[in-house]
């Protein structure tokens, strides 16, 4: 944890200095200045999650067809959730009283769906220009921006997504830039602040983009990059800067370590340490360094097979881990390479042809990326419409795979929008499957969810019922929508 390492370094210094008894007024002032300087650099998590699970009660859901999210299907099975967690799935015991029971005979249960690629909040509805907060398209490298600072929690799209069974989602900056900025993973609860939605403990992501978008945006201004080779040169230049940034901090920490007081009362060493100037903080390079150190997960918008392989080579050159390729309409051409490198493909079921690099899209893309051992296929939306029916997108991809002769039962396809998505976001230990101990993020569907007729009837997040199709009181309405069209009969 790069930033946390630095934080610990400061904290160590702070506690050591605090033991010293400096007598002079000047010395105290100097120390105060230094400490205040450090204080401004201390927090690795300056916009912390304030997420709290909503009120819940122990709930037993019985007689359902359960897709667990890890490839299993259980028929006529039960699920018990309590204290916001999944207690057991299949069979188990429950307390004698205080349990709400839902008979789900004929219904299907899945983990809460996860969309790894959303712009809700940063490109909210209504899509007026004043709401266009998703692309800081003023420079090709803007790793310093954080999507969460653009998220408008009142976007009506969040509540529409709940009705589609979405319980977690990653909000990404757009793809105008080579380095677009940090993403944020949210739990899909309607709150007044994004902090109250932030998925507790989820790592940050970094959005990058290949190909046409950056070169079009900046090339159109007669500015670099205007070509794909310009794109790659600029990525590499940034990684080199980030490597140097890490070295500078390591050297600083080494110097500090040498100056650490060996004995109690070694005030000279402490003072010397305090006078060593730390490197200047750089928000852009902090994020890039976070990727190089493995704390921030890479999410890269990339369509063409050849470009994705270039990116994998670049990850080797700078010794970082590639996370997930997003959109990847040509991922099927390199499905084996993606699986070998433990790289996920977050893909559309059928979208293609809207630009040149999307020309070779096929509807079997997801099924083919899923095919190899260790394949990590994900269905993503990138759309305020698609996120409402991610199950239908998975259904289309499943059936195209089946028609091509691949054996893809629903319990396998559901992984594309649950466990594989959770892996991509680094939250698989908390959600994505119906495993005991995980967050009770659960959807009750009126039927097999891999159908155009399927509807999420009830949605639980951390055990709390946050959506009920039959109960208006449990259907959130954003501030924006409240009081519109007052004279119109519903």
């Amino acid at each position: 944890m790069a930033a946390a390492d630095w934080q610990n370094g400061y904290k160590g210094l702070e506690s050591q200095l605090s033991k010293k008894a400096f007598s002079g007024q000047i010395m105290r002032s100097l120390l105060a200045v230094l400490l205040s300087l450090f204080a401004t650099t201390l927090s690795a998590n300056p916009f912390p999650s304030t997420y709290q699970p909503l009120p819940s009660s122990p709930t037993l859901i019985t007689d359902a067809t359960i897709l667990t999210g890890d490839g299993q299907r259980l028929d006529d099975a039960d699920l018990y959730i309590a204290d916001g967690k999944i207690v057991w799935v299949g069979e188990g015991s429950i307390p004698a009283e205080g349990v709400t029971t839902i008979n789900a005979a004929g219904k299907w249960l899945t983990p809460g769906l996860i969309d790894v690629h959303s712009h809700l909040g940063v490109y909210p509805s209504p899509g007026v220009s004043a709401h266009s907060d998703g692309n800081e398209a003023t420079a090709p490298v803007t790793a310093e921006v954080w999507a969460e600072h653009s998220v408008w929690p009142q976007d009506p799209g969040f509540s529409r997504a709940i009705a589609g069974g979405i319980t977690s989602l990653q909000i990404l900056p757009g793809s105008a830039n080579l380095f677009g900025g940090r993403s944020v993973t949210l739990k899909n609860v309607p709150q007044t602040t994004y902090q109250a939605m932030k998925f507790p403990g989820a790592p940050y992501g970094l959005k990058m983009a290949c190909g046409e978008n950056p070169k079009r945006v900046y090339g159109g201004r007669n500015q670099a990059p205007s070509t794909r080779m310009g794109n790659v040169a600029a990525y590499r230049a940034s990684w080199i800067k980030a490597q140097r940034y890490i070295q500078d901090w390591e050297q600083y920490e080494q110097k500090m370590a040498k100056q650490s007081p060996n004995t109690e009362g070694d005030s000279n060493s402490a003072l010397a340490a305090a006078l060593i100037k730390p490197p200047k903080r750089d928000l852009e390079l902090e994020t890039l360094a976070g990727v190089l150190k493995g704390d921030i997960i890479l999410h890269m918008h990339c369509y063409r097979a050849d470009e994705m392989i270039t990116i994998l080579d670049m990850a080797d050159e700078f010794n970082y881990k590639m996370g997930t390729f997003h959109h990847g309409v040509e991922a099927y051409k390199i499905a084996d390479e993606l699986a070998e490198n433990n790289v996920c493909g977050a893909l559309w079921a059928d979208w293609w042809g809207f630009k040149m690099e999307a020309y070779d899209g096929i509807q079997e893309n997801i099924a083919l990326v899923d095919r190899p051992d260790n394949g990590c296929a994900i269905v993503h939306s990138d759309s305020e419409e698609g996120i409402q029916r991610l199950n239908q997108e998975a259904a289309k991809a499943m059936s195209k795979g089946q028609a091509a002769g691949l054996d893809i039962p629903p319990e396998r396809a559901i992984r594309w929008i649950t466990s594989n998505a959770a892996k991509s976001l680094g939250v698989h230990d908390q959600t994505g499957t119906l495993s005991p101990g995980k967050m009770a993020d659960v959807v009750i569907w009126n039927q097999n969810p891999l159908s155009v007729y399927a509807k999420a009837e009830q949605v639980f997040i951390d055990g709390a019922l946050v959506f009920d199709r039959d109960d208006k009181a449990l259907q959130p309405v954003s501030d924006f929508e409240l009081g519109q069209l007052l004279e119109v009969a519903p």
Partner: protein
Amino acid sequence: MKRVLFTALLTLACSVSLAQDLLITGANLHSQSDAGVIENTDILIKDGRIAKIAPRIPTNKMIKVINANGRPVTPALFAGLTVSGLSEVEAVSEAVDSGYRELYTELMHPEFDVRLAYNPHSSVIPITRVEGFGFTLLGARGSDKTLSGQGGMVRFDGGYSSFEGKPVIYVQTSGRAAGSMGGSKVAHWMLLNQAFNEALTDEELTLITPQGAATLKTAKSDGIFLFHADRAADIMRVLAFAKEQGISIVIHGGSEAWMVAESLAAAQVAVILNPLKNLPESFESLGARLDNAALLHEAGVPVIFSSGETHNARKVRQLAGNAAANGLPHNVALAAISSTPAEVFGGEPRSIGKGSRADLVIWSGDPLEVTTQAQQVILGGIPDTMVSRQTLLRDRYMGAAADMPRAYTHP
């Protein structure tokens, strides 16, 4: 296994001469006519038209037989309002021929006719066709003028001029285009009124050419004006304008059409809409809701579905399925992507009866379900090869890597 065998049989069948008579046996026929769904029937096709619909039609060696085996058969579907054959790649402007802008005339050009650039060999067409689609409404769009131009229906049968139906004039009055048109939709109405008055009353022409005036006159007598409007108030304004001018209109967009459903029904105006729209995308669609189509149908308004997409026009079937899942009767949802557009825009009737064009699809299951596949498309009585650039890419990459690169795999 059944499916593989079925496909193999179809492939065999398709290799036989194309001009042959065709017999589809064991169809679960969604006729889209008063006959409704006809279970387990045979369909005899001669010279590209339906010759007979009856159980157990006798066959002979000269007739090619396709066994539908109880599967649904529907009319070939409507791909919505698209620019198929006018746009190879949406963002590659040099490969898109659907609109006009920055013309040196400064005038509006309703005579601008996208059909002149229609290319039946675009890879987009087989990619759409193999998913069960047989025709589309070609749109004029991307223009920066109130009158965007004209188009009409076209069949996906590979013909250079497979056009049918009435001329359709595209009219833009929504706020989205208003930025380039006087900064307000008021400017659209001002200019539209003037253009119509000039064209239809022999006033001096200042906004359109004589050809444009002639186009408007023709369209007034035998064409359709398609207005893009989402807001209820704007739809009411369009209805009033149509009444004043005596023109036939269709509303496209219609996010808030349900709010004025009775007025639309009274004026017998159809609506082309996307039934997935349920978000206030703009201040013109605050009333967008998933049961828009169902409410319009209940009020007696004909509904047609369109996604607005060309390359992924095949998604229209999913639109219809969602409309059915949100209260629209299944047969009406199917009609919204088959017979209704044909009724509204003219051309070949798209219900299946004796004498109707043999544009059909055999499906693996419910035609509105996303997990259903089009197993055989038949246009003008000719079974399609069911091959597209995308099926070939799939087949090239399906198999394990060989010694030679994939470029040597010729599926």
